[in-house]
């Protein structure tokens, strides 16, 4: 019996859904949503299935599939998951399922919207499961490009008008318009992909066996000089997507302007593509390069953490706060990776998952608040806790996870990262990192207090709590945050099996 190509099903189910939506569901908005829910539901079910049936003792790449595409050039459709990509696939599934429900009330051109969204998700899955660098790059581009349309067409423009002594900077840059954000994000990411492409070709040329296969490249090993420069190329290329400082400025604009589901997907999953790329291709294939650049990577990660948190503190637009908090949290992810230690890398991957879920929840909530109050301006809101207790509760859960409260998923990732930082070659990284959690508490609690606590703002009338399908996204994401906080071993276990071989290659 041939095994079921489960990874292909996960990857292509959304794409199939997108095609169905384009060709069969014109002017039938409910059908669009049902197709989207079913196709992502299939992916989610399969992701859960592989998550629980993955053989944790055997470890390595499982559910392997291979189909030769262009044998002379060594290009093959080669898929497989290890403990690390396993968790990422699960993350993608949870976020896209929640995202489908979070955009349930979208009215403009929902057919095209869902089709693009689903096509994009296929790209994301593809990157996480590909074991062929060429295919990986194709999927990567598929994940990045639809963003331009999704933000440019369905995005929103910030209502915040610049004031104060730095207003010139805002006016000059056109910050806040969706067209600007879409253009900036796309150009930035394409700039990054150029580096990735060069890196992949450099590996292909230097690998010696004319193959794009990840496994063969892993076995081959590379010359230290090659490793040095290719790692840098991967770091810059993937790092842009992961929001590394100072190449992060596309992310606040992009996330703030994007429609809810796209923000969720982008901040929740796409930024993880970047970090995943650095860990999988950077550290996995180029261990010497990783060791050489670890100091830079970790130090910039620390800047990310503190800088992102401080910048978030100064924002007055709710979506920008969350967007900058992503910049800060991605710092933890990159820091964990830079420590090149077992707890650090475990923490890094777990933090990718935790941050993905928490920021997805945040953006879903911000979308809901915006839908009810038609405002993202923090200081116009107040006392929403009375009229929307459910949203307030979910926001508090996301916030607590964000500031690293134990028993939420956010804590586990951060704590492991800290342990790794202490054991790394540069223990001082720990200090800015831990200070970052303190600053996170400041801006999260400030926002929570302003929006949900305090006397009710008189500007808003007839606000209501979430209802119907809106609950689905909130419930799924809050549930995952708490469960993975209390039972982190479920996820840390498989991640650890993927991290250990990585570290062994580092030592070698």
């Amino acid at each position, binding site marked *: 019996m041939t095994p079921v190509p489960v990874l292909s099903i996960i990857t292509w189910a959304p794409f199939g859904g997108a095609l169905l939506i384009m060709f069969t569901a014109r002017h039938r908005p409910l059908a669009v949503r049902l197709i989207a829910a079913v196709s992502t539901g299939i992916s989610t079910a399969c992701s859960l299935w592989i998550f629980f049936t993955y053989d944790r003792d055997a470890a390595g790449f499982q559910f392997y599939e291979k189909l030769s595409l262009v044998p002379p050039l060594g290009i093959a459709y080669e898929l497989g998951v290890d403990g690390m990509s396993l968790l990422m696939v699960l993350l993608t599934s949870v976020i896209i399922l929640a995202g489908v429900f979070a955009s349930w009330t979208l009215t403009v051109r929902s057919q095209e919207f869902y089709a693009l969204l689903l096509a994009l998700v296929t790209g994301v899955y593809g990157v996480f499961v590909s074991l062929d660098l060429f295919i990986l790059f194709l999927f990567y581009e598929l994940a990045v490009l639809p963003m331009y349309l999704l933000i440019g067409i369905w995005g929103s423009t910030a209502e915040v008008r610049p004031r104060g002594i730095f207003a010139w900077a805002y006016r000059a840059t056109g910050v806040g318009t969706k067209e600007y954000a879409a253009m900036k994000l796309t150009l930035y990411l394409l700039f990054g992909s150029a580096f990735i492409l060069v890196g992949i070709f450099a590996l292909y040329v230097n690998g010696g066996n004319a193959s794009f296969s990840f496994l063969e490249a892993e076995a081959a090993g590379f010359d230290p000089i090659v490793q040095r420069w290719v790692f840098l190329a991967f770091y810059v290329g993937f790092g842009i997507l992961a929001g590394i400082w100072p190449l992060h400025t596309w992310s606040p604009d992009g996330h703030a302007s994007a429609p809810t589901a796209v923000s969720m997907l982008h901040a929740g999953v796409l930024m993880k593509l970047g970090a995943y790329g650095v860990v999988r291709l950077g550290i996995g294939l180029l261990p010497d390069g990783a060791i050489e650049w670890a100091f830079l990577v970790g130090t910039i990660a620390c800047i990310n953490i503190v800088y992102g948190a401080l910048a978030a503190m100064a924002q007055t637009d709710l979506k920008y706060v969350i967007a900058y908090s992503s910049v800060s949290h991605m710092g933890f992810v990159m820091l964990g990776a830079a420590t090149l230690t077992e707890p650090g890398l475990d923490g890094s991957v777990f933090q990718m998952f935790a941050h993905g879920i928490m920021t997805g929840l945040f953006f879903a909530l911000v979308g809901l608040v915006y839908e009810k109050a038609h405002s993202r301006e923090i200081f116009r809101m107040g006392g929403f806790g009375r009229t929307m207790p459910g949203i307030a509760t979910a926001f508090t859960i996301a916030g607590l996870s964000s500031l690293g409260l134990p028993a939420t998923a956010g804590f586990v990732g951060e704590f492991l990262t*800290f342990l790794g930082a202490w054991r790394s070659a540069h223990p001082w990284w720990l200090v800015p990192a831990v200070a970052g959690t303190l600053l996170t508490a400041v801006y999260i609690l400030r926002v929570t207090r302003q929006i949900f606590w305090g*006397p009710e703002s008189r500007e808003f009338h007839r606000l209501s709590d979430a209802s119907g399908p809106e609950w689905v996204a909130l419930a799924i994401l809050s549930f995952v945050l708490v469960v993975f906080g209390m039972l982190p071993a479920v996820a840390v276990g498989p991640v650890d099996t993927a991290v250990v071989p990585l570290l062994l290659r580092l030592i070698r």
Partner: protein
Amino acid sequence: MSTSVWLIPAFPLAGALVNAIFGRAIGRRAHWVAVPATAAAFVAACVTFSGVVRGATYTGQLYPWIVAGALKAGVSVQVDQLAAVMLLVVTGVGFLIHVYSIGYMQSDPGYARFFSYLNLFVFSMTMLVLASNYLLLYVFWEAVGLCSYLLIGFWYQRPAAAQAGKKAFIVNRVGDFGFGLGVIWLWTVAGTLQYAEVFARAGTLGRATATGIALLLFMGACGKSAQLPLHTWLPDAMEGPTPVSALIHAATMVTAGVYMVARSHALFERSGVALEVVAWVGGVTAIFAATIALVQTDIKRVLAYSTISQLGYMFAAVGVGAYTAGIFHLVTHAFFKALLFLGAGSIIHALGGEQDLRKMGGLAPRMVPTAVTMTIGAAGLAGVPGFAGFFSKDEILAAIYDGGSLGLWSLLLLGAFLTSVYAFRLLFLAFYCAPRMSPEAAHHVHESPTVMTVPLMVLAALTVVTGFAIGIPSGEGTLFAQFLAPVFPPHEVEHGGFGAYALLLLSVIVVAAGFLLAWLLYATRPVAPEDLGRPRTPIHALLFNAYYVDRMYDAVIVRPLFALSVLLARGFDAGVLDGAVNAVGRAVVAWAQGLRRVQTGYVVNYALTMLLGVVALVGFLLSR
């Protein structure tokens, strides 16, 4: 024994979940869930305690929580004598306060939410005490902080309450910054976070390492237990409902720092220096907060500063190695301070929400049970001979005197005097001088319902008997000390003899002097309310404004931090980084605009350009 141990946290957790999920349906009947849950926890704690008395201890693990490489931390608990005592206090006082809350929160719209939070707190606090490793301790250390945050901000629509909740969380986070670093450092050097293994290896740690770790842990304790310089959140925390102030911000949660230091005594002793720091921070805080309590006009704020001061005593005690004295004071303080807070709540209830001492007075005849029990509480706090506080405070003073630290001892003796002054000042201003409230308010004064006064009486009884029951020194130390002996190293205190009696006499004199001063100032002549609230002298102003610490933090830390964040976000991010990005964009556009002019569309121009190109190429090839 294992069942009873796990049941202690399980009951309140179940209660919290039921009220959280079905709160809307349960509504006013929420106490039928919450109170029995706490009562059951108390019973389980008693069963556990009796097991411990018979000499049994327990360790066990529910499930391994985080396992990553060398790090293994489970949800594991241990019960020894110290934990058993703490559990009794937490569930016992917790139960009484739950009962009291039935009356106090009677007409609150968030009734079910309140009991859900309160149960969640009891769960977290019992788990904090039960935890057998530092990571789990940290988890519940944060969890009780969360409950505190939620309960301080319980009346979330009040701006002051919302602000206070936020402040409490953030100030605690500053402490936890240190605590977290300490735990991580500890794991790195000891390779484990399990108490028993850590303490067994404490002796092998370097002295500097041990000092670093201990001080970082103590930083967390400073935050949680409101010691200098992280004390500023506790007075503001009084915005929460009064039962919360009694349970969390007086009797249990704020003592977690003391518990943690006592629990980790092996680490602190290895360092030595760290213990000294603990003692001095405690001593200085004790007198610092006591001076502020002298002049506050809000009844709950007086008690809040008093709590900070009394926690200082506990730290001073554990800092000199008198762990049992510190824990004993923790226990007696839990009784009399919870009593005082609940009494204050009863007054507030009677006056329709009034907390200002300037608008009280003459309440004694109108609310006899409250007046009597609060007098007992104040006597306990002041350390009047015979009451619980007398035994515990005297033991601390004796231990410090024996330790040879005369400076610290005189500081704390002065503190005892101040304590007596403000305790009796509070009593006189509230109950025994002429009424100062409006006639209308005076008309409405009424004693609180039985459900509120009975907990007061129970706590008053405990304040009276605890000292006699377990606090009388004998040849082998107090009964309490004998019970805790397996946990703590013996601390030699000379009991009896001339020196001890002299000390005893001295502390009695000090308390009497405090009482006299308060009596002269507040009971012999009518008090003018405006004198209390309007500082006339700079010293009075300094104390009235709590040494301006809040304002200083605001100017030195909070404002600069926000200025920095605005500078980074608006100036650097939007100005410099985006400025550069946009400049690149514009440069490309400008360049393209320039290049566009070359494409004129005239064939002649293109032909000319081609010719020039060919000439240049040929010239280049020939020149080689």
